[in-house]
């Protein structure tokens, strides 16, 4: 059973690692089941590939499995064999039930965080000169209009943020505004949550449509203040 035992232990160890150990590393969080499934699938693929690399290893791997399934020379393990043979269909049935029966869990949602902007917002550059005064002014506007949600520290943890789902963007995270051009931010601030395309789930976003309240120039200044305050720089082609 050695050749068969190792892979099983490996799979279990992998599962325990992904499910219980990885989430408890500081700064981590529980993995969604889709990701755990993906990693386990890769592990299983690796095991099958490795165990079938040569005739001998294949026999060492499949042999016990075959003997176990056919029940030849199994001796004391016969009971276990019947257990597995009964359990397998039950497991399949249980899985089927789980995926067909109406579930208590709400439908999974996938929201694209940075969907494609409309064409007319892709090629703009900031017309406001990047002077210290303008940046200061932008930070002032930010404090007045944006910080209640996006936070005084640009981390998306403002006092008004907690009730909103999706949460306000965290500008200090290098995968948010640092990956985007200024024109993208201009679009998002100007048109707000309701301006998102369908993959951005506009019906859930609390982001105001600021074009109704702020002139364009202020928005451009806010963008400068935001990048400066979050210690990020916009994506450019230079």
């Amino acid at each position: 059973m050695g050749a068969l035992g190792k892979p099983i232990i490996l799979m279990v160890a992998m599962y325990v690692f992904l499910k219980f150990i990885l989430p408890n590393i500081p700064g981590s969080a529980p993995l969604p089941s889709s990701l755990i499934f993906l990693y386990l699938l890769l592990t299983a693929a690796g095991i099958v590939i490795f165990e079938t690399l040569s005739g001998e290893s294949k026999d060492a791997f499949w042999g016990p499995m075959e003997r176990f399934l056919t029940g030849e020379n199994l001796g004391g393990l016969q009971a276990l064999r019947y257990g597995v043979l009964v359990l397998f269909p039950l497991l399949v049935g249980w899985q089927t039930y789980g995926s067909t029966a109406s579930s208590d869990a709400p439908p999974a949602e996938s929201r694209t965080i940075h969907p494609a902007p409309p064409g007319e917002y892709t090629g703009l550059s900031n017309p406001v000169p990047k002077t210290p005064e303008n940046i200061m002014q932008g930070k002032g506007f930010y404090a007045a209009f944006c910080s209640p949600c996006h936070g005084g520290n640009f981390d998306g943890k403002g006092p008004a943020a907690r009730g909103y789902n999706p949460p306000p963007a965290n500008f200090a995270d290098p995968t948010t505004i640092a990956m985007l051009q200024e024109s993208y931010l201009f679009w998002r601030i100007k048109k707000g949550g309701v301006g998102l395309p369908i993959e951005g789930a506009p019906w859930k976003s609390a982001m105001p449509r600021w074009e109704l309240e702020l002139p364009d120039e202020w928005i451009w200044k806010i963008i400068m203040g935001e990048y400066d305050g979050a210690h990020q720089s916009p994506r450019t082609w230079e």
Partner: protein
Amino acid sequence: MSAKRQEIKTIQPALQPVKGHGGWVASLLLAAVWLVLPSIGIAAEGTATGPTEYRDIPYIGSRNLVWIVAQLHLLLAGFVLGVPIFAWLCEVIAWRGGEKRYDKLAKEFTKLLTSAYATTALFGGILLFLLVAFYPKLMNYLTDVFFPSFLLYCMLFLLETATLYLYWYGWDAMQDGRKKTLHVFLGFLLNFFALFIMIVPNAWATFQSSPVVLSEGTALERAWAATWNPTWWPINIHRLIANVVLGGYICGAYAGVRYLSVKSKEDREHYDWMGYVGNFIGVFGLLALPFAGYWLMREIYQYNQQMGITLMGGFLSWLFIIQAMLIGVLFLGSNYYFWLGITYRIPGSEAKYRRAMLMMLVSLLLCLAVWMTPHSLVASIEEAQKMGGAHHPLLGVLGVMSAKMTVSNLMILITFMSFVMYWRAGKQDTAGWAKFGKAVMGAVLVVASLAVIVLGVWGYFVPAIVRINYFSTSQVAIVGFVILTITPLTALLLKSAKTTTEMVWGSMPPRAGYALVLNAVMVILLMTLMGYARSSSRVHWHVYGVMRDTSPYAYSPALGSASLIMAFCTFFFCILVAFIFWVATMGDKYKTTSGTGKGDLPQGIPAMAGGAPGKQRQ
């Protein structure tokens, strides 16, 4: 217009897949295609004023039909262009290296060309009629722009056909001396025309995704301006390489299927060897393909940020996770075949290489795990709440471009090393500098891998443009450098090496044959997937930003329902190719049974496993 609104209403709950088309299911049925063909035009959708802009057919829908036919045409075209490259390379190897069986292999594949070529042209013709019938407005516009290149295309077709006939029917007649030189030249011409037959229509297709402004001028000037659009050359290169890959893997799959069914020892040896050659050519194209793909993606991003984001971050971002999985399977399958080759073809070598294979496998799987980790994860609301959004705080960093670029470079390196290991297996170095040479190679490999990883990690901390322009290109250059240093060094080492274990052909297990089939299916699926991606990245435009799609089919279907059409295209293409092979080899069986046999099959094949392919690249 009202029909369109209607359509939008029926597909409004768009987070679900597209609803409403009974045609989806029906589209799976080939029969429906033919049953419905005569009814084209029944549902002509035109207003009383103005010319007809779109026509439709019931059940399957005009868009789906064009989709399937276009995809099949493209796959066949890739095959028809990939096979001559493959065949010509083999012929040149036989010509220069004197190994007859490469000539035989080349001929065996050229034999397919006539029927494959006709099938491709047939599907091209069907596609043209369908396009003219279903999309008159768009076709009118494109004709306006590209009229001169239509003529050029027709001319190329004539030349290609003539060359092809000469090349195939003249094969036996032009076997010796200067005649052979002429034949090889014909093969070159064949590929030369084929290249143009590919890049001329590429201009039409790329113009639709990345149009340029057209000013007044002669028809020729306008067509030339439109042809030279930003994504034309990236696509040309990408498709050229992909066609070689397709040709190689299809050759491998054919050999795999034959290997599974033939009985005689000679046949087994022959098809085992053919499978090896096919896989080899496929893999070597595959190593270059990600770079070409990266270049293309970069050009798209540069051309239009909106299209770039639609592909990479917007509604198509999931497609690239699926793509990563398919490419992952392809890499695993190709390496698996190499490793199987080591353990089965070189008796006794398993113990020696098992450890190395395990290391490569684990590294490959780790790379794949990184590559397949999406930036935004599929999560239930509860899971998302625990993560604080759709990004995992720790693993989310694996989702960005810098990580993906790094692991794809590493995967290429690993696959390359798999091949080098296969090449060296069963041989013992005799050269005095062997130890030193191996140390240098090891050092190059280790330093290069570290450099790629360091650049990848560093890439998180520099502005995107620095990463794209300098880091990613450096990574590619490093990998290229490794391949370019280790290949000649290994070849030199092996020149003087002594073969300790002869390679045994025809001893591969059946699963090797299935691995070859799997690789071919993956390549075909990838091509159909990218066809969908290219078309969907234009979103609701016929010609991006210039001519809007106002038909009821202006939307792009969700990946799930699209995947069934892709699966159908793949399956149907496989059947077509099987048919072409069957037709082409029908005569052989007759010949074989009537006594010629495959007498001149190679017996001692020692140098070939490593040596010949090495020669081929120099």
